[in-house]
């Protein structure tokens, strides 16, 4: 596995008088995400007066604060102290693993990508054919296998409400990389599975987008009306740190799941799990197999 060396110390920079931006690393990696997550979790645990938002994101995190309550330098010193305290210890996290059904190569994203073909790097193929080719896969099926066999981490939730960015838990050499569209589309179907750079995402709402489109999930992930059981607690499903396993489904199963969504009976397979970065890095594939056993209750 590629050894990712993080900068010894994160880079701290104030965003005006109300934000502190902290870059763990300029490049994306699981250790960078985990270090940011660990600091954010500890900051949240301390419940400091004046800290109003704690937002982990990929290889950085953002804290919003009220400088009338906590002085900028005091917050900075606290975060540096938390960072120093992490040391070389293993980063562990209690989280959950979730199975998300995906209809790859669906008709709706296909219709959309054909409409915006002139904005694409390769107008003569589809997004998923292009992604398979430039990532060295012999076929679209082989690409779907690579995309859906190893699980992914939700490394950021945002851009718009409830939209998860996901980073695959494999060696860097195996990570799927695709450029964004040359010029963003003005339309993306709701619940599209997209990919740009090294990140996959699920578009939580319909709208503009620049990520390549691979498929669609029947599972709502953001619903202000909170109709499904797993959205009762909050209208947004995903949290940074969630682990996701894509489950390829066919059109018949997709239609069944949509009927369940409409009946209000659709549920996701979700299992609590503890994650150790050290154990994962020692044997990613073996560790992922253990995670999938937890998901399936084996």
């Amino acid at each position: 596995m590629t050894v990712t060396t993080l900068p010894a110390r994160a880079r701290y920079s104030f965003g005006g008088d109300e934000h502190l931006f902290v870059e763990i690393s300029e490049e994306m990696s699981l250790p960078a995400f985990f270090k940011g997550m660990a600091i954010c979790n500890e900051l949240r645990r301390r419940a400091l007066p004046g800290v109003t938002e704690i937002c982990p994101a990929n290889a950085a995190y953002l804290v919003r604060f009220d400088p009338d309550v906590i002085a900028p330098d005091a917050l900075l010193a606290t975060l540096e102290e938390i960072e120093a305290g992490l040391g070389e210890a293993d980063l562990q996290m209690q989280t959950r693993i979730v199975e998300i059904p995906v209809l790859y190569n669906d008709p709706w994203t296909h219709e959309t990508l054909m409409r915006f073909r002139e904005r694409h790097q390769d107008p003569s193929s589809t997004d998923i054919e292009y992604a398979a080719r430039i990532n060295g896969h012999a076929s679209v099926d082989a690409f779907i296998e690579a995309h859906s066999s190893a699980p992914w981490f939700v490394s950021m939730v945002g851009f718009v409400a409830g939209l998860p960015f996901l980073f695959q838990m494999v060696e860097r050499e195996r990570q799927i990389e695709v450029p964004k569209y040359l010029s963003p589309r003005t339309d993306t179907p709701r619940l599209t599975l997209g990919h740009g750079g090294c990140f996959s995402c699920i578009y939580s709402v319909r709208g503009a987008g620049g990520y390549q489109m691979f498929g669609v999930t029947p599972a709502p992930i953001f619903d202000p009306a909170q109709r499904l059981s797993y959205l009762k607690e909050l209208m947004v499903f995903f949290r940074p740190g969630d682990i996701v396993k894509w489950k390829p489904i066919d059109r018949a199963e997709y239609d069944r799941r949509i009927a369940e969504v409409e009946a209000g009976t659709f549920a996701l397979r979700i299992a609590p799990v503890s994650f150790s970065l050290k154990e994962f890095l020692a044997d990613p594939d073996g560790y992922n197999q253990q995670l999938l056993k937890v998901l399936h209750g084996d």
Partner: protein
Amino acid sequence: MAIEVLKPGLATSVQDAGRPGYYNLGIPLSGALDQQSLVLANLLVGNDEGAAVIESTLLGPELQFDAPALVAVTGADAKVKLNGNEMPRNESFAVQAGDKLGFDFMKLGARMCIAVAGGIDVPVVLGSRSTYGLGAFGGFNGRKLLAGDRLPVGTPSARAKPGRSVPAELLPVLAKEVELRVLPGIYFHRLQEVSVRSFFADTWTVGSEADRIGYRYKNGTPLQFLDRKPPFGAGHDPSNIVDAGYPYGSIQVPGGREPIILHRDAVSGGGYAMVGTVISADMDLIAQMQPNHKARFVEVDMARALEARAERRRRLDRLRAALAA
């Protein structure tokens, strides 16, 4: 009682003091873009200062009241008309059942707060009545107002009375050219020296893409970033970063071309390098900028940002004191 929307205006929505606490899930603050005008409008009609109001943009709505009410209009400079008769801005006045409230085009400023005693009584979602358009929730049915909407109004307080106003010197000044104070940072170090100079020297013009999410500025010198080997996951353009969180007020420059300042309906993160952040004291000024208004970015340090913040608070405290009597 209720207010019926006869004409919605250009971009009119229900907003209050905002919805903090969910930015980590991509749900932004929202709330009135010009918070000073929100506070003033509410205090004029005897509301709590964070109550929900109607925020309108550039062209106000036409509204009809189905019962007597107390109203105040603050923010941008536009003629306020009750049944066609001009009414004062920044002063509470009574309306009767059947009265129609309308507005001329805004001459200066871009947003008005229309407060009604009792506040706009839409449901509270995640702690706020503010509309969040991209998420389609909050406010009235999660969207901008449309003709035919009927907005419920809460119960006025005992402080609600007509003729309440503040001394003119306490009102914010509206202008077509403003200075926006910026704390450089985040990825400022990745700008070339020549661009550091031009960014602060140029006069920037508000483009047509200027809304509650963000303001795009044009007509300045394109910015150049230092060359680099693209970090894994960042993308190849030197203005790209690994997607990260965006502060409110942060200034991103996609492709180095046009700076975009994010406001209270911000997208919470993305892959463009930010070169600095407009200080909190100047965010209300952005809310009042129309397309083609001009801005200069003025570099400040944290000490000056905090002084400006304290000065803004003192100004608000003087407003509160003037209206407490």
